[in-house]
């Protein structure tokens, strides 16, 4: 009765109540649910915030799915899988921490095995193939490794970079081109460490934005509704395969697939890799480079016809030739991948992920092991 005479209080009660309910749900969810399960797969969780990876963790994300299906956010396109992920005290994907191994595997998400469980990760597979322990410096940049080469130097560094990052405009390629070969390892000063901690504290609230269940629910409703009405993904970043294979592609990869070696500025890429090899050589370390073909390169034929690239002059092959001429040891995984695709239906890449699956990793690491 009292509220009827005070419509403004009734208004605050209803609208404010709804607002508080949403806020409460958002705040309680990370407390009630296991934090790692608020992420769509393990990789997003271990990456942490602002370049500060989580450390010393081993956990399993159930019903995880691919990064592309996360962008698309339509249930029928997800490939559910349980992902176990172990990171060491450096935030790298290793079960046991030792930095004295003879071989170091380095790279970003592909070499870490994002989207795959520990047992299928490149480090695990390569160690199995070589029957020797491997230190996985992944996720990590080559420029970081060059600045902090361990005292016990490895004999070989295997560096894998995915095709879409093998362009002259890529930040890491530019960093490598611009940096001097470090003569001795540089360590972060305590002042720098302090700045990192301050940055983390100040920016920690942004973690909330990534784990907000209200936001996730909103995204889900929007994307599912959009897809059922428009029959195409709401996300501007993904493209669906032409055939009913439920394959999803990243548009950035498609764009790059239409560029030739000049447009990709492969000269700079070649120079950066050669320079890296020279820097490593100063420490008596040998580089084994793996150019990883993009999903769109390997499964080009699944794209709608108008989006298919013409690989008559394959830029990746061209890069490998250039590198070999410079004396860089390169692992060609493109050829066995293409042969496999023409002969088999088993998938090398996850349909809902930009990354390779267990079979792709197995094939790539087998090729790499052959070079030892």
């Amino acid at each position, binding site marked *: 009765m009292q509220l009827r005479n005070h419509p*403004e209080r009734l208004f605050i009660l209803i609208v404010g109540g709804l*607002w508080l309910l*949403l*806020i409460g749900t958002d705040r309680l969810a990370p407390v009630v649910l296991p934090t790692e399960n608020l992420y769509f797969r393990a990789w997003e969780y271990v990456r942490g915030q602002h370049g500060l990876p989580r450390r010393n963790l081993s956990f399993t994300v159930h019903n995880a799915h691919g990064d592309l299906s996360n962008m698309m956010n339509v249930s029928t396109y997800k490939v559910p899988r349980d992902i176990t992920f172990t990171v060491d005290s450096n935030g790298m994907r290793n079960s046991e921490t030792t930095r004295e191994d003879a071989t170091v595997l380095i790279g970003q998400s592909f070499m870490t095995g994002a989207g795959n469980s520990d047992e299928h990760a490149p480090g695990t597979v390569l160690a199995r193939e070589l029957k020797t322990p491997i230190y996985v410096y992944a996720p990590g940049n080559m420029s970081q490794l060059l600045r902090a080469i361990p005292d016990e130097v490895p004999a070989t560094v295997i560096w894998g970079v995915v095709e879409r990052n093998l362009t002259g405009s890529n930040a890491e390629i530019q960093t490598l081109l611009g940096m001097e070969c470090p003569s001795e390892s540089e360590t972060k000063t305590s002042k720098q460490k302090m700045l990192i901690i301050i940055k983390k504290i100040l920016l920690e609230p942004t973690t909330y934005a990534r784990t907000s269940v209200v936001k996730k*629910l909103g995204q889900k409703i929007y994307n599912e509704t959009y897809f059922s009405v428009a029959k195409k993904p709401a996300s501007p970043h993904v493209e669906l395969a032409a055939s009913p294979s439920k394959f999803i592609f990243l548009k950035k990869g498609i764009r790059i697939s239409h560029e030739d070696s000049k447009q990709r500025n492969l000269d700079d890429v070649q120079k950066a890799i050669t320079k890296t090899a020279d820097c490593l050589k100063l420490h008596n370390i040998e580089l084994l480079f793996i150019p990883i073909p993009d999903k769109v390169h390997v499964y080009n034929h699944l794209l709608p016809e108008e989006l298919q690239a013409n690989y008559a002059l394959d830029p990746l092959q061209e890069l490998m030739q250039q590198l070999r001429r410079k004396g860089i040891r390169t692992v060609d995984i493109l050829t066995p991948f293409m042969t496999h695709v023409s002969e088999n239906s088993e998938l090398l890449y996850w349909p809902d992920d930009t990354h390779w699956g267990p079979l792709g990793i197995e094939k790539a690491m087998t090729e790499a092991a052959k070079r030892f």
Partner: protein
Amino acid sequence: MLFNDTIFLLWFLPVVLLLYGCFPAKRTPILLAANYVFYGWWNVWFCLLMLTSTTVDYLAGKYIFQSQNDARRKILLLCSLCINLSLLGFFKYFGLLSETINALASAAWLPTWNIVLPVGISFYTFQSMSYSIDMYRKKITPAQNFFDFACYVSLFPQLVAGPIIRYKELADQLIARTHTSDKFARGLQRFIIGLSKKILIADTCGLIADNAFAMQDIGTGAAWIGILAYAFQIYYDFSGYSDMAIGLGLLFGFTFPENFRYPYLSISIGDFWRRWHITLGNWFRDYVYIPLGGSKKGIKRTLINLLITMFLAGLWHGASWTFVLWGVYYGVLLIIERLTATVRSSIPKALQILMTFFLVTMGWVLFRSPSFDDALQYYGSLFSGNSGVIETFGITTVIIVGIITIIEPRYPHIFQKVSLKSAITCSLLFIASLIMIAGNESSPFLYFQF
């Protein structure tokens, strides 16, 4: 941070309101801290720039007020204006200046730096400058203390896209303002309506407009749908932001001036500028047009003053010659209006509204196009008579939004009264907006770039 971010809606705003409500004695410091966190979210260094502008005008205002010497007062005012305009000029117009001079000279006379435009600099600089000018004109007395003044300049609800508020409009409210449940409820209602205008109407129209302006060969029908969609996008985007700002102001006990009054129902261009971005129009009237002589120095001078004022208003909107031309276009239209006042009065009102809307829409082509060439091409498409595919979604949206725009003045109480019906409507609009925000990763407000 944007008003339409979940981080603002579900984290920043509730925390600030909670602190604001829990510590009544510390309301100004809490608000000041919130303002700087809000602004620093874009870039911490931007805060230093705002602090500089604030300090300069606070000190200038203080010494102008204290000084009895007219020459000294004038020098202090000039110092304040020079520093403020230099900051604005450097960050906003240096790129345009160097690009133009280098192009004219066919040589790199000036460096072409990639200067990041601090968000909302045009808005807070104008607010801050109005303080020094009004102090010089003896229209106001100095702020009680630096924190009150800093709070006025940086007030987050209207910091980055207006309304542009003069110090005298907020001076008393900074010292004492009332907080009632009615004000809070109306603030909440206004905020949600503004949010829905932005998310549900402006962003939807934006999809159609972006598509039309991105096309190379567009048919006449699709071009008209595109420009009408843009006209509605910019109105609902900007007026939505103003509604949110006014609503947020009410939540914190402030009453801000209105910034829009059904501008698309204006009967003339002069009338349009009295209804569109009202606080900016008033600012230019009081600090540019009237000091130039206004309409008191004969018809010839009046027309020149109108042209200068609109030229500057165009330039204020952005560092591009298309904005300047857009401003000059309005200057010319206002001049023609002055000269044809008697003829216009005989035209039926509905036709006057249609003519004004047509002229305003033509102006939006210049405003939206990245270059003259693009604008000319779009004008060509509008009148070429070329056939082409027109999407049903575009036509339907433009018709629905057009109807909403026409009937909007019939429901003025929508912002004034709250009820059970409006509570349910607002709840549904809030949920719908949140879904759209989350799914669509909503675009920033158009007026942030100015």
